[in-house]
């Protein structure tokens, strides 16, 4: 690739890496996996940079990450081991209920199938309408709504303390 394309690509990545990495973190919940996911999408974009740069490169990269994340989920071996740079904190006794809730919710998000998680990220982190989410995930808007609903139901099941917390909040 020529020096001009390399400069242009590098300038774009430097300008948008924070936003793109935010999406990758939202999708994976883990720094190493987020970096791997984003680099994979960036490599794909750089291979086609003359074409990508003339379109909407950020949208291209986001779409690549969402599709890649769902695709990786289908690979043998995915999900058998979740790497972590933090020790489990369930045994701690000095946490407040609020911290408990946040940790439980994070764990629930980590246990969601990637497609469910992708729908939630697109809806609640990226704030995209269902029609746009459907285009990115190559499905119908009604499927987006169904999956979002199922994802929230699944979170309720995985994080029962969240349900208790919400009930308590409503009573106040």
């Amino acid at each position, binding site marked *: 690739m*020529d020096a001009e394309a390399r400069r242009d690509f590098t300038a774009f990545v430097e300008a948008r890496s924070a936003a793109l990495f935010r999406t990758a973190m939202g999708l994976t919940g883990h720094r190493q996996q987020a970096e791997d996911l984003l*680099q994979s999408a960036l490599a794909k974009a750089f291979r086609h940079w003359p074409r990508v740069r*003339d379109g*909407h490169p950020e949208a291209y990269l986001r779409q690549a990450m969402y599709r890649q994340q769902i695709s990786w989920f289908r690979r043998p071996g995915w999900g058998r081991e979740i790497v972590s740079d933090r020790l489990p904190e369930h045994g701690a006794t000095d946490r407040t209920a609020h911290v408990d809730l946040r940790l439980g919710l994070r764990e629930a998000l980590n246990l969601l199938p990637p497609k469910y998680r992708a729908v939630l990220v697109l809806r609640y982190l990226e704030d995209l309408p269902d029609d746009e989410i459907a285009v990115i995930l190559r499905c119908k808007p009604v499927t987006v709504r169904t999956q979002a609903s199922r994802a*929230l139901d699944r979170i309720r099941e995985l994080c029962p303390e969240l349900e208790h917390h919400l009930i308590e909040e*409503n009573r106040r």
Partner: protein
Amino acid sequence: MTQLQDEVRRALREIADAPPPAGLAAAAIARVRRRRRRIAAAVTGAAVVFVSVTIGLSTAAVRPDPQWQADPPISATLAPDRWVVAAYSGLTPGSATKEQADWTVARNPATGAYRTVPYRLVTSAPAGDRMLVTDRGVRGGILDANTGRTAWIDGYSNDVLDASWSPDGRTIALTVSRKDDGAFGFALLDVGRRHVGQLVEVDTTGGPFVWAPDGQSLVISPTHSSGDEALPDVVENLSHFDLTGRLLRTVPITAGAVRATSDFSPDGGRIAMSDWVSQRIVVVDARTGGVVARPATGAMVGWYDDNHLVMYDSLGTMVVVDLAGTVVHTYDIPAEARNPSTMVLVPRR
């Protein structure tokens, strides 16, 4: 919005609130290079393979460029004593969006006036009277700087990565990476006949292909992965190829990559290039590869004479320095020219 949705939104934002790692772009570029090498190794059994190339210039249409007359001239203070800025183009930060189109400021040699054209500059003829431009990579053409007319090239594709105009002004060497099969090499564009030859596939990667000052051969800086995705690739040497793709010789030049014929000194004896790691300009002996000088940190533009360089310093100021790094002249240039993607200097007539 339910409370559950609010909690999910808050949790996702907390998770996503992390600074990005450094070196993302360099790592992605390194990945692509490794993949390209794998493809090249799989496809090429022999060192050099001749195959057809999809780009062509057979029925180029010539039309006046309406932009040529429309824009007001920019400052003419760009011209140094013996060199004149023939063209420069802008692409860097913010350009990678649909909203910001490519642009090139080109000098009309007949009048000395500068005009803006809405195309990306690829390379210029040594005299600065003709330029290879591309319209978003979709089409490519030759801009006549005297008339403002662009002869568009039928079949030009974004397989063309870079281009180098021969010292005699007759031929353009196109660096090509064919997306269909990953083939990498060069194709020669006969400017007069408007004809593109076959792709000469070369079992190497790196680039671009650049005319050597003798006008008889091409040089390229092959590269391989450094093994660390955060670091640039390693330059292996400077390889000289004849125009049939036969490797003539290699020179142990590893400090950086040659990217234009203007990296060679006017007498052809030395090469100035940017060190990829330190970003310092390094001057090497073109025959032996021995380091002659490390004058300054910045970006190379070209040689002012055999003992001085034109370069951008770290603040984006274009200066002339001697080989010890002493600034002997500072140019007054418009802000838009302080960080161009391409800057072309040609001898003043």
